[in-house]
């Protein structure tokens, strides 16, 4: 799809380096606004999220749910059996979902007249990106080169025994046992899926709790659920070393304990793809490898913007979408409202799920001093009882003010984050939500009940 004429004249409104969540969202929005766009992608449009991230992991987690459901059928009076997991079949299903969405995305890019340039791009000036000897000029450039799986110093990922998430997603078997290094979102999601498939999992996390970026109550409840699921985890336990042996790995953690397993999954975070792409040469300021930006996502080089995982902050696909859309609208002169990073919803799709938006209790105390907290236990929520899930909804409110944090743990609570997101971002008061009695029996009813309780009007309230 390379347009050979580009070196010899065409100037695009926008040249975007990287066709992942951030890059393609910017491209789609800019095209809708009538801009001409060149989108440079060396691999496949859709990027990490579509091909090696959000979508395949969630397909895996849904297959895991199917397995759990069959294993636990008797609890519901249904005689089901789980005979096994056919990873070939899971991968086929997973790839089918990815392919369908990939085709849809390609169709969208085409339909909106976006020029997709295949190849590895390099920033060569504030207005040019070079791809395979051809220079593409844009009135503006957006950097959206994304991120890659990081490791720890001295810990080499061999893709066989010591693997990263991209390898874990293409395994042709269910490992018998696994050590997951890192108790953040990605680590916890794989630990959950593998456990459902029958793997014996141990999570090793250096920080004192699982999902350490979440409210401490979320960590506590997730840890309780994982304990019940027999997922072993060692928090506050730094990794020391790994030895690859014949049948797997021997992982040594702080204190000297050695854990044997078939594979070690390294899920210690993702580093920005910003080295060797010409950024520094053109003067784009970096901070520990990340591209620093102002409130409009402009880099230190006027006219050059950055979106997605290369920008410090939450590494989430929909943050990339939002940033991409923001820059496209900003460049079109629409003056979009700056993005409140805390207003971006966060979901961990493990069993149980963890979902949050806004500030944790700790952050809210730091910001507002006095806060009010309301914990609504899902034990009082009919639908959650029907699903046999435990968990809670926690609301954090600035004293006499708006709801500034919503935190949830439980099966399927990730879907409640849409409502929570409106409450946080629209700065609603408990009294705004309280009169809107929620549909019975749903899980979102728990959000309603929590707001009723926080507004001083508890209905089905249980401590």
């Amino acid at each position, binding site marked *: 799809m390379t347009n050979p004429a580009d070196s010899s004249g065409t100037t695009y409104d926008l040249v975007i380096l990287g066709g992942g969540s951030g890059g393609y969202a910017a491209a789609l929005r800019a095209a809708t606004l009538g801009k001409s766009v060149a989108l440079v992608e060396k691999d496949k449009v859709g990027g990490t999220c579509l091909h090696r991230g959000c979508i395949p992991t969630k397909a895996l987690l849904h297959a895991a749910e199917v397995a759990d459901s069959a294993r636990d059928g008797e609890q519901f009076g249904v005689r089901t059996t789980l005979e096994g997991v056919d990873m070939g079949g899971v991968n086929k299903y997973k790839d089918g979902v990815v392919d369908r969405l990939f085709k849809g995305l390609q169709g969208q890019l085409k339909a909106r007249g976006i020029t997709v340039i295949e190849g590895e791009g390099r920033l060569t000036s504030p207005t040019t990106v070079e791809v395979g000897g051809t220079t593409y000029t844009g009135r503006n450039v957006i950097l959206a080169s994304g991120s890659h799986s990081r490791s720890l110093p001295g810990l080499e990922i061999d893709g066989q025994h010591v693997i990263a998430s991209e390898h874990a997603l293409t395994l042709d078997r269910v490992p018998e046992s696994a050590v997951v290094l890192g108790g953040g979102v990605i680590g916890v999601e794989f630990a959950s899926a593998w456990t459902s498939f029958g793997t014996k999992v141990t999570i090793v996390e250096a920080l004192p709790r699982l999902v350490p970026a979440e409210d401490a109550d979320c960590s506590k409840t997730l840890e309780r659920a994982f304990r019940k699921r027999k997922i072993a985890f060692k928090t506050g336990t730094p990794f020391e070393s790994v030895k690859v042996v014949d049948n797997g790995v021997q992982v040594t953690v702080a204190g000297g304990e050695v854990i044997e397993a078939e594979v070690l999954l390294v899920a210690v975070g993702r580093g920005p793809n910003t080295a060797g792409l010409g950024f520094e040469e053109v003067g784009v300021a970096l901070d520990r490898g990340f591209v620093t930006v102002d409130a409009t996502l402009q880099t230190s080089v006027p006219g050059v913007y950055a979106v997605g995982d290369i920008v410090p902050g939450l590494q989430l696909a929909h943050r990339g979408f939002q940033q991409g859309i923001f820059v496209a609208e900003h460049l079109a002169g*629409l*003056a979009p*409202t700056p993005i409140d990073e805390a207003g971006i919803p966060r979901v961990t799709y493990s069993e149980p799920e963890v979902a949050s938006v806004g500030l944790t209790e700790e952050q809210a105390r730091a910001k507002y001093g006095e806060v009010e907290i309301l914990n609504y236990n899902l034990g009082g929520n009919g639908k959650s009882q029907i699903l046999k899930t435990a968990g809670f909804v926690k609301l954090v409110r600035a004293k006499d003010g*708006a709801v500034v944090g919503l935190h949830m743990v439980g099966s399927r609570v990730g879907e409640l984050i849409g409502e929570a997101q*409106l409450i946080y971002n*629209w*700065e*609603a*008061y408990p009294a*705004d939500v309280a009169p809107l009695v929620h549909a019975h029996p749903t899980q979102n009813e728990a959000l309603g009940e929590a707001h009723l309780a926080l507004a001083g009007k508890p209905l089905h309230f249980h401590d």
Partner: protein
Amino acid sequence: EPVAVGNGSVHVLAKPPVRKLAKDLGIDLGAVAPTGPGGVITRADVEGHVAAPAAPAYE
């Protein structure tokens, strides 16, 4: 109208719960002076308007 259309872009004058609050209180948002960023009417603006209504229609 709580949402004004101009310049091809939609400018929201107040967040939905605040518009709803104003409506429930019988307040015309057009009569409330905005103090929020970008000319947005805040909850405090609406509440302040209730406490100290602008010059009465009759004199």
